[in-house]
């Protein structure tokens, strides 16, 4: 079943922070985050595994709460280049083979 992402869209100014949430009704082993810019391919950001770990990537970090079956992506001090659609992919194993993607969150960063 497809994970649910929220919000569907967010607009913010350069330098502001944003949080994107991803939740699943099924038990999760892993959560993958991807960003897709308009007209381009999705690009990998990070993978989180069960165990409640938190990972970081520049000013983009994420957490994974397996008990709540949720993951959150944190974008700090947003840059114009952060604009795009963010997808979470959830799986019941660590492999990308069994990913089910959410419907995406469209993030727009304005100057």
């Amino acid at each position: 079943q497809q994970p649910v992402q929220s919000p569907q869209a967010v607009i913010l100014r350069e330098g502001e922070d944003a949080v994107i949430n991803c939740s699943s009704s099924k038990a999760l082993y892993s959560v993958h985050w991807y960003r897709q810019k308009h007209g381009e391919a999705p690009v990998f950001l990070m993978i989180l595994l069960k165990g409640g770990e938190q990972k970081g990537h520049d000013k983009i970090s994420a957490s994974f709460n397996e008990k709540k079956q949720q993951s959150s992506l944190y974008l700090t001090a947003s840059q114009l280049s952060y604009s795009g659609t963010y997808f979470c992919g959830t799986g019941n194993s660590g492999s990308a083979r069994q990913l089910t993607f959410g419907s995406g969150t469209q993030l727009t960063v304005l100057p």
Partner: protein
Amino acid sequence: DTAVSQTPKYLVTQMGNDKSIKCEQNLGHDTMYWYKQDSKKFLKIMFSYNNKELIINETVPNRFSPKSPDKAHLNLHINSLELGDSAVYFCASSLGQKNTEAFFGQGTRLTVV
């Protein structure tokens, strides 16, 4: 060099036609995928191939058939195209192990008229 390349980038065709989309990866990955992204941006997996063996087929109509001549290629053949097949199709690849990322091609925008 492009890691995952797919051709063509754009494809416009009439209903009822048969078409193919090609995909090649030079990353040495052992698993390749086809995803369909519709107008609402839902990214849905269609197939994945691991070592030339189909391992996922997510309720895709049998008009769609993946063909993998070798580990580096996974082509998508579509018979009797319908209007609802219009979408962007992405090829991707990964190492078929845990904790690995998928690399996507640039997509093929298919328009059925």
